């Protein structure tokens, strides 16, 4: 009897990903072996580096902050059936908005600067998402192309801005003036010494708020309902009287604005100035984060921490085992995406059969007991 039952929820959500993760680390182990180092030790170092001490945890969370924003950005668009791979560009351009406001207000107080900078970043990032959205909605231009193009355009724009417009005079580096204290988002370490010197800052609170907000938006609001309808069946949404073109534009704007928050974490939170390529591909990682998190805020939160841990743990690994290079870290990350994301089905059939067998046996036992009881 080849009949298979779907897995119990807990197995689907916890067991399967766990197995896949283990698998990914196993393969990564081989890579580590190649350079004659001990894989188990490597894993140990990664885990320690990511969660073992205050600074490590802080860095893990700092990276996770970025990935939450870019992951959510991708997910929001995805729920509306749009594949926004422009997260990099949207976050990058948002940096412009953030720095302009922050530079203007850095003599005031962060309580004034931060919210306004968030709005500015949201607007700049949002516009960078809205344009592709508009072109999709009214001209049918495929967002995948337009967002790819807008990533390149953003890069060019920012190089120009940083070299010709915003560049601070007394430095060779193409970067803006440094923000005064009033333009900086407070570091968590100021309240929680545990975090040592790590750059994790109040932006992470915003990120968590965004996770909750996104959940509410997508599953608890009427707009969210409409976006999901468009995403699942654009003909039905049109029949229902939703304006597909408007929804497309709204989704892309929200998505871009969300990605834009990376700028708050980096510019106001960590660098305290605008530097070249500060996004460092967080937008790209966000795609993986969202896909592995199945576009659900909880999943995205967890995936973001996972990737944050890999970044920080990987860095630890480089220090402890100098033979390990940053490319190996990249390989390990890729393997994790592969196994937990693309190949998540690898062990499903086996598991399902396992569960069927179990249940069958249990039934058998049960009936056996039952009959025994009845006899006695």
């Amino acid at each position, binding site marked *: 009897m080849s009949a298979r039952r779907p897995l119990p929820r807990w197995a689907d959500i916890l067991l399967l990903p766990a197995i896949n993760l283990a698998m990914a680390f196993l393969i990564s182990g081989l890579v580590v072996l190649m350079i004659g180092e001990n894989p188990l030790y490597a894993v140990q170092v990664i885990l320690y580096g990511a969660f073992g001490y205050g600074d490590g945890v802080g860095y893990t969370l700092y990276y996770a902050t970025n990935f939450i924003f870019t992951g959510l950005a991708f997910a929001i668009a995805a729920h509306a059936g749009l594949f926004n*791979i422009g997260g990099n560009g949207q976050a990058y351009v948002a940096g412009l908005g953030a720095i302009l406001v922050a530079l203007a207000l850095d003599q005031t107080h962060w309580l004034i600067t931060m919210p306004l900078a968030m709005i500015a970043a949201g607007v700049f990032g949002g516009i960078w998402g809205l344009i592709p959205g508009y072109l999709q909605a009214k001209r049918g231009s495929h967002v*995948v*192309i337009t967002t790819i193009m807008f990533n390149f*355009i953003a890069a*060019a724009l920012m190089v120009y801005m940083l070299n010709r417009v915003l560049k601070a005079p007394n430095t060779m580096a193409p970067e803006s003036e440094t923000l005064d204290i009033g333009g900086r988002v407070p570091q968590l370490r100021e309240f929680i010494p545990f975090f040592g010197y790590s750059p994790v800052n109040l932006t992470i609170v915003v990120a968590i708020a965004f996770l909750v907000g996104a959940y509410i938006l997508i599953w608890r609001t009427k707009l969210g309902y409409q976006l999901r309808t468009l995403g699942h069946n654009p003909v039905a949404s049109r029949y229902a009287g939703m304006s597909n073109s408007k929804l497309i534009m709204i989704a892309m704007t929200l998505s871009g604005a969300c990605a834009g928050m990376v700028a708050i974490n980096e510019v106001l939170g960590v660098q305290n100035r605008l530097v070249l390529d500060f996004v460092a591909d967080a937008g790209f990682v966000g795609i993986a984060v969202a896909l592995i998190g199945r576009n659900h805020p909880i999943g995205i939160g967890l995936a973001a921490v996972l990737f944050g841990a890999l970044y920080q743990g990987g860095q630890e690994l480089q220090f402890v085992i100098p033979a390990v290079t940053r490319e190996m870290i990249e*390989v390990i990350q*890729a393997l994790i995406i592969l196994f937990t994301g693309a190949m998540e089905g690898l062990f499903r059939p086996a598991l399902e059969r396992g569960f069927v067998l179990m249940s069958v046996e249990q039934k058998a036992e049960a009936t056996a007991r039952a009959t025994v009881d009845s006899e006695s």
Partner: protein
Amino acid sequence: MDIDLILSMANATLRLATPLLLAALAGLYSERSGIFDIGLEGKMLASAFAAATVAAVTGNVWLGLLVGVIVSILTTMLQGFASITLKGNQMIAGVAVTMLAAGMTTFLGQTWFSQGGRTPQLRGDSRLQQIDLPFADQLAGVPILGPIYSEVLSGHYILVYVAFLAVPLTAYVLYRTRFGLRLRAVGENPKAVDTAGISVTMQRYQAIFITGILAGLSGAYFSIAQGAGFGNEMTAGKGYVALAALIFSKWRPVPVMFTCLLFGFLDALQIRMQNVDLPIVGQVPVQAVQALPYILTVVLLAGFIGKAVGPRAGGVPYVKER
């Protein structure tokens, strides 16, 4: 606008269009069969690295090319296994394969050659040579056509000619052969293919096999033809531009060629417009010039191409039983 500049532009256009064309055609086979492929970049990197490595070690460029293609095929098959057999998410598969290739190439390169992931520079027979078409010199004298033939068409790497021959070939395969018929069908309505007694899985694997070959050629072009040796991430995002070209041309072979030529031309233009005094506007910031190809692409797309609707079954794994 003098004749030399025109010839030089035409030349550059062909050179720059070639890797895009090969990659876009690669994507065409995959996506026409219903497998979205944002892993082109990864395959190209893998092949570029493998080709350069083998060429450097054996000193035989053809062996390099072969191995490059094989490695690209293997990479494609890994991606295919995830998205066809395991019915995994095709986008994640693409992203993963790309990251894997980016990391692996540099890592292995560093372990083997310890030049920061670069392979040794290729010289002589370890690198493809530009080939002159027959009678290039004799015909050079002929007015107009002469220069075009001898200066523009002649004297390119073999892969350039392969790429442009692949276009009519692909068109023929797609519209005139059994394989092509089934390929188009399986990307539109796999159920119809299945009920017609054809294995959807096999059909898709065959398609991405070709994808592997073409992506491999495209990648090798970077490291053993246009360039001389592999450098980290040397495909510099061309895989994504190729994907854009594919969508731009609505997944049709001949338009793909023209789109890639257009992109190549825009890039060649950009290169020649940097820090040049333009009529009216004068000197524009170099960054504006560098962004020009991308801006023009968007404008053209929005202005003239309109809505691109991909293969209907694209992106979704084929599952019979819910």
